[in-house]
């Protein structure tokens, strides 16, 4: 019931729109089934499954809008929801930034649905947990992990004839393995649309190796080091940067893309010339949503119906695009580019092992943790390394090192680029391992 077909969804949306007495009306209909299993101390702690199907109706009179939501689908409930949205709209204050709804749109064909994920059962999740816990128990290690899978659909429609439908699946797995004495800790994370690509066992093996190898870490003096950030580590800083590419903030002068004397740094070379970042909803490894404009991970929830398309954000180090709200784009007379649902950082062909081999002295970073903005003007972030930090000398991993706190800006970091490896999927993006010189570590942490 929770996953409606395109035809079933359209039928409900059309019915809702037929009840409308408002100037404009939009409808969002979405459903999902989400299952999870969580374990710690080599034992399952919680597991569950929830299904959800809900309808949101937005009614507009002039510049006033109101939204009502419901999860009952009989005719009387649908009509009641429409009337309630209309009542709320009439009572709302004018929104001077209201932009009339979009008419029919052409959406890209995107395949983000996988039968293998949609067919996941509680037994599958229990088996994944077992495959992860069992090898740890055998090696006297302690596993804590989490697996979550979602199958869902999302449909949008409005009184101007717009309609869109998308069905998608996803699976996220993360595992932390610790040694019994608490001196070593390793981590691995994987995410896919297609669950058949996930091996909880092999991800756990990576975390186990890191846990064992990270025991008895030595302290290095904090300072500037050449680092190799694995994709799992690099993605967090890059996501923060991509989340700060809103045009309005830049044009208002309160963003790293704002410019001295007014204006923005659009068109300026801000990064090393090897840096190219784009988004492509049709990319087979990270298929996105066909519609966005709020639906993107960097823009909040819901969708205003804008089609997602391929957008180049940074090309050869030059800022090529920023994203817009429809209001701001109209005011500025430019195309309302929607925030992306994921990004692709073009990398090289080297493996992580190749990058390590080519490093005379450096630090390999598995994961970054508790990243917080320190200065939005320079995109300075602080945070720590975690779950596997190693010293590299003459192309080889020499020994584990104690974790560091860093204070670094992704903008500075992408100017200090030494080399890039082959991109890998990380949190819904494609990110290469990055070799960076002069990465700033400001203090040591005793945490394991």
């Amino acid at each position, binding site marked *: 019931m929770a996953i409606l077909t395109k035809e079933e969804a359209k039928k409900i949306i059309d019915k809702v729109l037929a009840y409308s007495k408002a100037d404009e009306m939009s409808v*969002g209909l979405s459903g999902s089934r989400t299952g*999870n299993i969580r374990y710690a101390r080599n*034992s*399952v702690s*919680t*597991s*569950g499954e*929830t299904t959800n199907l*809900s309808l949101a109706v937005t009614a507009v009179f002039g510049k006033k809008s109101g*939204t*009502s*939501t*419901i*999860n009952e689908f009989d005719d009387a409930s649908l009509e009641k929801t429409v009337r309630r949205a209309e009542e*709320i709209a009439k*009572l*709302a*204050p004018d929104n001077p*930034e209201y932009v009339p709804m979009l008419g029919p749109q052409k959406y890209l064909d995107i395949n983000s649905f996988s039968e293998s994920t949609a067919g996941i059962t509680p037994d599958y999740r229990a088996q994944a947990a077992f495959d992860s816990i069992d090898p740890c128990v055998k090696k006297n290690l302690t596993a*804590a*992990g*989490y697996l*979550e899978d979602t199958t869902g659909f999302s449909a949008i429609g409005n009184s101007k004839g717009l309609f869109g439908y998308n069905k998608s699946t996803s699976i996220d797995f*993360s595992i*932390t393995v*610790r040694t019994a004495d*608490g001196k070593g800790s390793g981590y691995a994370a994987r995410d896919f649309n297609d669950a058949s690509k996930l091996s909880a066992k092999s991800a756990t093996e990576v975390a186990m190796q890191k846990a064992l190898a990270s025991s008895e870490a030595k302290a290095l003096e904090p300072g500037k080091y050449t680092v190799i950030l694995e994709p799992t580590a690099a993605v967090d800083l890059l996501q923060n940067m991509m*989340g*700060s*590419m*809103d045009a309005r*903030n830049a044009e*208002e002068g*309160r*963003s790293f893309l704002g410019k001295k*004397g007014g204006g923005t740094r659009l068109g300026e070379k801000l990064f090393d010339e090897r840096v190219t970042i784009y988004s492509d909803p049709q990319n087979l490894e990270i298929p996105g949503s066909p519609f966005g*404009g709020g639906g993107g991970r*960097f*823009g*909040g*929830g*819901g969708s*205003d119906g804008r089609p997602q398309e391929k957008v180049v954000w940074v090309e050869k180090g030059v800022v090529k695009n920023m994203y817009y*709200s429809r209001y701001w784009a109209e005011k500025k007379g430019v195309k309302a580019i929607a925030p992306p649902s994921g990004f692709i950082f073009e990398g090289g062909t080297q493996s992580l092992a190749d990058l390590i081999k080519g490093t005379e002295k450096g630090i390999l970073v598995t994961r970054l*943790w*508790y*990243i917080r*903005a*320190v*200065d939005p003007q*320079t995109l300075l972030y*602080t945070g*720590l390394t*975690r779950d596997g930090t190693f010293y590299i000398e003459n192309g080889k991993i020499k020994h584990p090192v104690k974790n560091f706190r860093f*204070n670094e800006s992704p903008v*500075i970091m992408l100017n200090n680029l030494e080399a890039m490896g082959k991109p890998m999927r990380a949190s819904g993006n494609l990110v290469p391992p990055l070799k960076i010189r002069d990465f700033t570590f*400001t*203090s040591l*942490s005793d*945490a394991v």
Partner: protein
Amino acid sequence: MKRRDFIQLAGLGTGAFMLPGLAMGRNVAPEALLAPGLDVAVKKRLADAALNAAKAKGASYADVRIGRYLNQFVVTRENKVQNIVNTESYGVGVRVIANGCWGFAAVVDAKNEAQMAKAAEDAVAIAKANSKLMKEPVQLAPQKGFGEVSWKAPIKKNAFEVPIQEKVDLLLAVNNAAMTNGANYVNSVMFQVNEQKYFASTDGSYIDQDIHRIFPQFNVTAIDPKSGKFQTRNALSAPMGMGYDYLQTNPSDKVTGITTRYNKGYDMLEDATSAAQQAKEKLTAKSVEAGKYDLILDPSHLWLTIHESVGHPLELDRVLGYEANFAGTSFATLDKWQSKNFQYGSKEVNLVADKLQVGSLGAVGWDDEGVNTKKWDLVKDGVLVNYQATRDQAHIIGEKESHGCSYADSWSSVQFQRMPNVSLAAGKTPLSVEDMIKDVKKGIYIIGDGSFSIDQQRYNFQFGGQLFYEVKDGKIVGMLNDVAYQSNTQEFWNSCSQVCDDRDYRLGGSFFDGKGQPSQSSAVSHGSSTTRFNGVNVINTARKI
């Protein structure tokens, strides 16, 4: 709901879009927030249906939470209302122990006995399935039943009864005050929450509770177009377990000094005026010279340091490893506690857990597993003496009863150990802020919370703030910028040399504390008086891009 979603909703993050349909329940008309929930007799009947069904299926223990969660957010920027959101979420969560193992099931909009029984049966089935992978059966600390009882937050004015127009008028006046005092931009928001929770368990408790929270907040930006620099200043408000009465100010609620701070009543207009002036002042403030300083930390700042470096590491589930994959574990291991001489801080440091504190975010009559709330010591005269525990953890630390730290953020979430209010007790010797500053040769006085980051075992941290004042030879000499301090939890608390007395005691808090997978949010207060820490490492955060 994740903190990020809240921030985006509030427009406090970058690139925020104001869209409804969030995972907080259904959007409703504002009047619906005042409609009565189910009658308590109906709730009892529903609860009994679930408890009986669970027992019939072989559960050795069961509890039911019938929850109605109401939210209202009013969001504005400059002279515009950006969004008004009213949401309601109603449903039931049933938790059981069967075959020694926990099981949980939830059902939306449950209104009849059959739905209740089905949820209970599902929970038992899940417990039995999970018991196959169980290592050790759940040991629940005994808890007496309380019969039919109720608790209501002692609010003076229900925020939902205040017309939306009045809130809109206030926020727009706040924005106007900021703009006319030199701000280039201002976002403001009013969060209001009401949890109507009914708890029943096979121990014989039927507990009806009505909990209110409020959080007025703003963010002011000042820009210097010539240099392209911008600075912000956030509100010095605290989220409170209060009604709209938090916004009715009395002179006695104000703490005057280098800038006005607030106690149990918040003057939002006055604070916005100061914020705009101070954001401008920050544009030309002196960049700090890195080095060791004595820090004088205002309660509006120190709450967050307490939260991160004391509240979280003393969560027993973290200590035991249940949060290892996400939030992490803790340096405050059981052996340190067992030694009875682990010096968490200096002798001045007394840290107290308290679920009773009036007006705090954590105050309730009973927790989400039917335990009556209390107050207990975590760190006494500097020594680690206790943790925060739930019923199934109490035996691990030799306690005969739970601390009452169980909480779930929704009827649909399973309850687990959450932080109580954790506060630094006021100093016993009379001491004012002025007297404290008089003795400081080289220091920084920090007001308001800013950037925060701490490692996964809670050793190494870094904090920013809103306002930084340089103290030289016992006097405040001017404003500083680019300040962050880094320390190690034990080193930091052992550098605590003075705590002002209870005249200066105020609450701060977190409205959106995240924990768990899937993540749950909770609200918690942290009280303190202004406190001095000697010789803390300060870094300069200025960079050029």
